[in-house]
């Protein structure tokens, strides 16, 4: 294919590993077999570009060049079904971590440099664009663990950028990785539209993802039916949300809310009297929690 394209676009060149930067005078694409090719922009019309992106992936020059490992991951992720003859060998369990930061705040190359210093082995990063992507983290046996909350603080103090992570669960096989990759990316975008947290795990996200699947009318109905007269009582709802987040622990919640534990007990009793829902019981608390998410 490359030779055929070169006949049409004589400037076409294939990126060679080891070169630091991609020439900005060229428009860059990734082929199906993960080769990065460039064609001089002056040789391309808008129509040409539109046609080329139907069978090639555009490649941004600001993004770090894919390593061999990253190329392998991209290839395996792009496969609709994993071929039994695939040469990709999984050495350790892995998880996918979606990240995003504010557009145009830092260079993706700097981000990658900093991220790589946090792990024992170089991690693969597949970029969606200049400010979003997926980190592929392999589980290493003896590595000192550093949480993503800590990673955010370290990177914020060095890179001056607010980062969000959606952390997937560890997997031991590559089966369905394509689907997993797609659903994780989609879920991340959903979850950050509900939550202000900067690190969300897949497990934390499940209630949000389930509620997001329901029709708007059903969501309204759930929140109205469960929350009843309290649907607009921000103070009480904030208190109940904190109570759920503190594992239904009165002392912990009263500390977090700077509220006397007796006042908290009294307000939870009032909620029970008025709604018949006892949020001290797990299944009632769960229903109220889902209703709170549905209300968002």
């Amino acid at each position, binding site marked *: 294919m490359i030779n055929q394209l070169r006949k049409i676009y004589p400037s076409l060149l294939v990126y060679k590993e080891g070169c630091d930067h991609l020439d900005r005078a060229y428009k860059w694409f990734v082929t199906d077999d993960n080769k990065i090719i460039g064609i001089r922009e002056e040789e391309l019309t808008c129509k040409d570009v539109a046609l080329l992106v139907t069978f090639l992936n555009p490649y941004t020059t600001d993004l770090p060049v894919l390593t061999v490992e990253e190329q392998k991951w991209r290839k395996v992720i792009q496969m609709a079904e994993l071929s039994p003859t695939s040469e990709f060998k999984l050495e350790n369990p892995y998880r996918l971590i979606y990240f995003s930061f504010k557009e145009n705040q830092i260079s993706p190359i700097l981000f990658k440099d900093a991220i790589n210093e946090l792990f024992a082995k170089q991690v693969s990063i597949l970029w969606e664009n200049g400010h979003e992507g997926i980190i592929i983290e392999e589980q290493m046996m003896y590595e000192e663990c550093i949480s993503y909350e800590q990673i955010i603080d370290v990177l914020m*103090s*060095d890179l001056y950028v607010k980062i969000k992570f959606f952390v997937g669960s560890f997997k031991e096989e590559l089966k369905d990785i394509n689907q997993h990759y797609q659903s994780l990316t989609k879920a991340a975008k959903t979850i950050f539209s509900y939550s202000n947290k900067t690190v969300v795990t897949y497990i934390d996200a499940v209630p949000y993802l389930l509620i997001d699947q329901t029709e708007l009318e059903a969501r309204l109905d759930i929140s109205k039916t469960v929350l009843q007269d309290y649907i607009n009582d921000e103070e009480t709802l904030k208190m109940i949300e904190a109570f759920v987040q503190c594992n239904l622990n009165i002392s912990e919640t009263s500390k977090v809310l700077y509220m006397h534990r007796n006042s908290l007990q009294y307000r939870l009793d009032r909620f029970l009297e008025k709604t018949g829902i006892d949020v001290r019981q797990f299944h009632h608390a769960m229903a109220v929690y889902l209703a709170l998410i549905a209300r968002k």
Partner: protein
Amino acid sequence: MADLKLVNIKKIYDKNVVSVQDFNLEIRDKEFLVLVGPSGCGKTTTLRMIAGLEEITEGDLFIGDKRVNDVPPKDRDIAMVFQNYALYPHMNVYNNMAFGLKLRKFKKDEIKKRVDNATKILGLEDLLSRKPKALSGGQRQRVALGRAIVRDAEVFLMDEPLSNLDAKLRVQMRAEIQKLHSRLQTTTIYVTHDQTEAMTMATRLVVMKDGLIQQVGAPKEVYDKPNNIFVGGFIGSPAMNFLNGKLEEDYFVMEATRVRVPEGKMKSLREQGYAGKTIVLGIRPEDVLEGPVVNDSPDTKIRASIEVSELMGAEIVLYSKVNNQDFVARVDSSCNVVAGETIDFAFNLEKAHFFDEESELRINTN
């Protein structure tokens, strides 16, 4: 070094959640300003707006004379220290401090000069080649401070930097940060939920609740003259006692118990129309007296039974009730009182505060 000015700052998150509003503050050059308040009061959001990590919904932020609302965080000349004092686990102390500068393409000799300087200031000379896992919590936090110092920034922003340390280390690091500030004289904005940390470290405090400033002032000023019930209760440990009662003639009356209000305060309360009304009396635990002094104050004497007695070393904290309202007294440890005993207390009402029952604002009686 720099002044900062926050003018009518407001932060609204998606879905119309107001996190901070009507925030007006001038932070003076070299000041150590502490934002303090309970979880969710907007203090971290305010700090992050100053850092540029959160967008400002309304209002203006100035660093020096320059409006910086739209200036990217990396160009604001600030250095940040966060709660998680995590470091790059595979780099030694030197490289952890140098890495931020390397990313910013500083020259090697400049990096070395700055890291050496921070190393000396923080006494890290012997630890430079160690990796984080070989450091104690306090040492890691010092390295995290070092990472900020090497920036040579105009403003330090610190978000609960000590809250992950154990109590003893926290006290030690508190003093180290104060020493660091007096040495570097860099304008510092420090966020904490811990009122003791706020009181001991601040040049000025900003007490926040529900996204609003409740009071700004020097620690002593805020302690002695809290603007409202919230500030009175938040600043001070054990917290200020609040008792509901009615002002009748010259007395503050709590059902069967009454205490005489000093003449000057009573006159002022009467002039402001509080005679015959329900108000809130605020009295700090150290102003609830015990022992022989009680006999000198028959008009403010109350009898109460002790529910809990906590020996703190030099003093004892006594938990009791007057007319079903809880109160706490902090008395000398020579007081030999145990739970279950009934004793006489006297309220030092010269030092008491009165608050409006509805607005919860302090009534000026000075």
